[in-house]
């Protein structure tokens, strides 16, 4: 359950980002996140632990939205960009195992809505 650590880390980062805001922020209303299928983060677990991490912070009560990003690889042999069925990383077009992951590994904070 590293999602709790991630939620705490996220809130710390958001609070840090708010320090540079010119007008005061009393609360974070919404946090938009991007979650890759290979990020190792369980969306449900993150949603479950977030309220515990957010309690008593500026993010308490914030709504979370998730943009789910599927795995996408570029083949080093045939050049195709395909989306293998997670968790496999081989090229869907030619079957080559020499691929670079283009997306699907990240867990990112896109933006937050504050008031």
């Amino acid at each position, binding site marked *: 359950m590293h999602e709790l650590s991630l939620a705490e880390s996220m809130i710390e980062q958001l609070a840090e980002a708010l320090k540079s805001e010119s007008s005061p922020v009393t609360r974070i209303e919404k946090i938009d996140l991007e979650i890759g299928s290979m990020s190792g983060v369980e969306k449900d677990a993150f949603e479950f632990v977030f309220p515990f991490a957010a309690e008593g912070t500026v993010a308490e009560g914030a709504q979370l939205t998730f943009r789910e990003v599927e795995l996408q690889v570029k083949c080093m042999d045939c050049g195709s960009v395909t989306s293998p069925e997670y968790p496999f990383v081989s090229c869907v077009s030619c079957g080559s195992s020499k691929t670079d992951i283009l997306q699907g590994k990240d867990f990112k904070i*896109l933006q937050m809505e504050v008031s």
Partner: protein
Amino acid sequence: MCEDCGCMEGNEKAFSEMANGDHSHEHGHEHGHEHGHGHSHGHSHSHTSTPGEIHIHIHLDSGMAGASVHVHTHDGLSGSHHEQPHAHPHGHAHSHEHFHGEEAHSHGHVHTHDHGHNHDFAHAHVGDGQHHHSADGHIHAHAHLSDGAHDHVHVHPHGDEGELPSEQRRSRTIALETSVLASNDAKAKQNREWLKARGVVAVNLISSPGSGKTYLLEKTLEALEGKIKCAVITGDMQTDNDARRMMGKGARVVQIETRSACHLDAMQIAERLAEVVDAGVKLLFIENVGNLVCPAAFDLGEQEKIALVSVAEGEDKPVKYPVLFHGAGVTVITKTDLAPHLDVDIGKYKESVRKVQPGARIIEVSAKTGAGMADWLNYLHRIVTGL
């Protein structure tokens, strides 16, 4: 002026500035007004009004490049006032107003238009978050301030992007585009630089509990004593049993008890580095908390991430826990001496690893019998010497 809904006369000027396109409001009641432009709110909302309550929807041009303001206000007879300004960073303006008659009613309306911008994200509102309006005097507001960093949110093929004057903001959006793990990653980078500056290679050993990490390390430290100076940071939720087992083999050993945490993070490593890495250390083993999931997400500043899986765990474990086995450049298959007793095929373990990490180096080892230890030690020697 709109006969049905009471749109203000001033609208005509605003409408004449509109780009082409349609704008219709699908209200639950008929009041039939249209204006000649399009805009889209990626939401619909409904409100319930009391007799005589006034709902005003005003869309103002802020006068700033590319920014306009849309304000919805709702005034109840009781003196309640609802206001819902929101801004879209594109350059058009319009206003319309409509008055409700004596009859109590509710209506939902949806704005649609076709001039090419989308709002993909739900809007949050101060209030109940559901975008309902009732005569309870609440105010909710939302704003979109584009700084160009969130292209996935709004697509505006027309007009420039701008920011609202602060007095028109009620809530605002701050774009971040950072990894949730950014602070851990920054600390891991510091660790990596600290180690590199001292010529130390760090390896992060990750496996499930009971795969044989500690025993392999005991045998490794014994084999390397006097050849490569090693240090060990070992993480467990409780006890210093592992540290005790590895002491007295020529390496400094530090135990991190993570208590409730299921993984080590870069901050914990940073706190102990100076203590464990003394002069002459070339190889730092970080034995992570036994767990195939969580430790995989945290960069500690290591040079190599090494996954271990024992032959007793099941051939498909690498496919079941792909984040770890994909992220590890090396997978060590441990306890190979048990294979004949367990009816397992080590070849299937390898296939499974290569499905999620085709380029993985796979080392088979039995720390108990010593089979494969030479391969493991050779590998360690190579990463330390850089050969």
